[in-house]
């Protein structure tokens, strides 16, 4: 599938933003502190930037509001509705944090629930597509949720360390580190399983079932409908990434897993100020890793349409 940058940026940025909103909402990062205030600003910025970029690939962004109408059947519509609804408690909690230096727990909890539900819907857009076998799995949902949480926890632990650096003797923030580690490892275990499944399981559809000509023997494409590329082959027949998949997976693992993990382990033992700087960099590294992973998520995916263009299986 063609990896549209706007969609990759949207899912990665908003995923991290929603993860941070969850951590803030359930009170793991104190919304009343300076770190919490910065956290709310970052979460809102990440989510808004993600949502804005998701409209860039639309043919008619001016009608985007219509996308809120079909929540009964469409995961894309549900995602839109939940994203908007979540802005209410999230905005309220941010208001309390920024202007009243207070942690308004009920709003925070609602925002956390909305954030999780929104990421769930985003993942379900892909996980519900039977046409792309690699995506159609609960693992897709697990990866989206855990990567979002891991990113949020990394950011939050950096911000909490920053708070702690200003109020010495309060070391409770270090409790966030094991949580971040668990989410990080959980996310990559899910992703490893996802990759394994993608390599082993193929769609039940083949060039034979697509053409219904299997009873004649092996089916081969003789001629495409047209010589040049078309919308379908450009959108569903993207091939560049598969060639470099191994290299890109290693890069995703380095930035998304190894560097943040090392940072988390070191942060356990160094003074608060240094830990803050280190962890914020780890969060950036994680975001980079997720961006690469998300790019592969699209670029490596095979769509059944390509069976009609000569692929033997999908």
């Amino acid at each position: 599938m063609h990896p549209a940058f706007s969609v990759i940026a949207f899912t990665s940025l908003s995923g991290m933003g929603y993860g941070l909103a969850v951590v803030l909402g359930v009170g793991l990062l104190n919304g009343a502190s300076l770190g919490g205030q910065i956290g709310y600003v970052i979460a809102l910025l990440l989510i808004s930037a993600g949502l804005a970029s998701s409209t860039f690939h639309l043919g008619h962004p001016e009608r985007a509001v219509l996308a809120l109408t079909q929540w009964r059947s469409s995961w894309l519509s549900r995602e839109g509705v939940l994203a908007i609804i979540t802005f209410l408690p999230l905005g309220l909690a941010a208001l309390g944090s920024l202007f009243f230096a207070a942690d308004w727990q009920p709003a925070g909890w609602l925002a956390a629930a909305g954030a999780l539900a929104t990421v769930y819907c985003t993942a379900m857009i892909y996980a519900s597509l039977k046409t792309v076998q690699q995506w159609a799995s609960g693992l897709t949902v697990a990866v989206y949720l855990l990567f979002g949480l891991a990113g949020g926890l990394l950011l939050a632990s950096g911000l909490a360390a920053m708070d702690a650096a200003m109020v010495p003797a309060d070391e409770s923030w270090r409790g966030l580190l094991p949580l971040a580690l668990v989410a990080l490892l959980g996310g990559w275990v899910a992703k490893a399983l996802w990759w394994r499944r993608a390599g082993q399981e193929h769609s039940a559809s083949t060039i034979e079932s697509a053409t219904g000509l299997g009873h004649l023997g092996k089916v081969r494409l003789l001629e495409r409908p047209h010589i040049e590329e078309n919308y379908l082959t450009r959108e569903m027949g993207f091939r560049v990434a598969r060639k470099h998949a191994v290299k890109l997976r290693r890069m995703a693992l380095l930035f998304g897993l190894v560097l943040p993990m090392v940072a988390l382990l070191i942060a356990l033992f160094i003074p608060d100020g240094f830990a803050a700087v280190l962890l914020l960099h780890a969060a950036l590294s994680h975001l980079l890793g997720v961006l690469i992973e998300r790019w592969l998520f699209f670029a490596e995916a095979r769509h059944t349409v390509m069976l009609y263009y000569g692929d033997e299986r999908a």
Partner: protein
Amino acid sequence: MTSLPQQTDKKLGLVIDLDICVGCHACVVSCKEWNTGGYGAALSDQDPYGDHVSGSWLNRVHSYEAGEGANARVVHFPKSCLHCDDAPCVTVCPTGASYKRSEDGIVLVNEDRCIGCGLCAWACPYGAREMDVAEGVMKKCTLCVDRIYNDNIPEEDRVPACVRSCPANARHFGDLADPGSEVSLMVLARGGFDLMPEQGTKPVNKYLPPRERPAEPSSCGKRSASERESTADATGFFRWLDQALERMG
């Protein structure tokens, strides 16, 4: 509304005969000709006179080879929207632009509501939907809804353009919910089948398989050159000519 109707009164659709199709692309061209001036936005082309021409089409003909060696055969394969009963392209649409009509089962896009997100094209296993790059809206086969109910054109033209134009009569239009309709009888007689039934889309359109062929003569490829060149079975004028030329030495 992108929820699917419980059931549709009719199931209008196409039956495509893979035995007969000669791969001339007449249906491809007439489909584009009719629909670029009909329902919704025109079907644009990009770089139409350049090196990399590309554009939106609602119907395309692929060509396949199936089987091995002397028994391999070429099958031309026209493909347009199959107007699926369980159309995944409809339920994923966030805006309600995509819908399936409860009266006749035709799957359509209301282009005024379409935001051009492209998700429906991802959800269709068959590649029956193409985004129009110039208009930014999704295009698909309309089953020529503006012909089949059109009182302003002669009655014989009230069938889809692709059906009307096929010189080999390989495309047929009718109600597949009516077991007595011509198309239903054809499907029954010839063993009409669904494309990718495992995708669970329950297509309305059906394909008729290529007919069985007599096996190749068993001597094929085993005769010597002189046997293959033998003129012993010539008759009439050619027999006389053969012999006359023979006599000339």
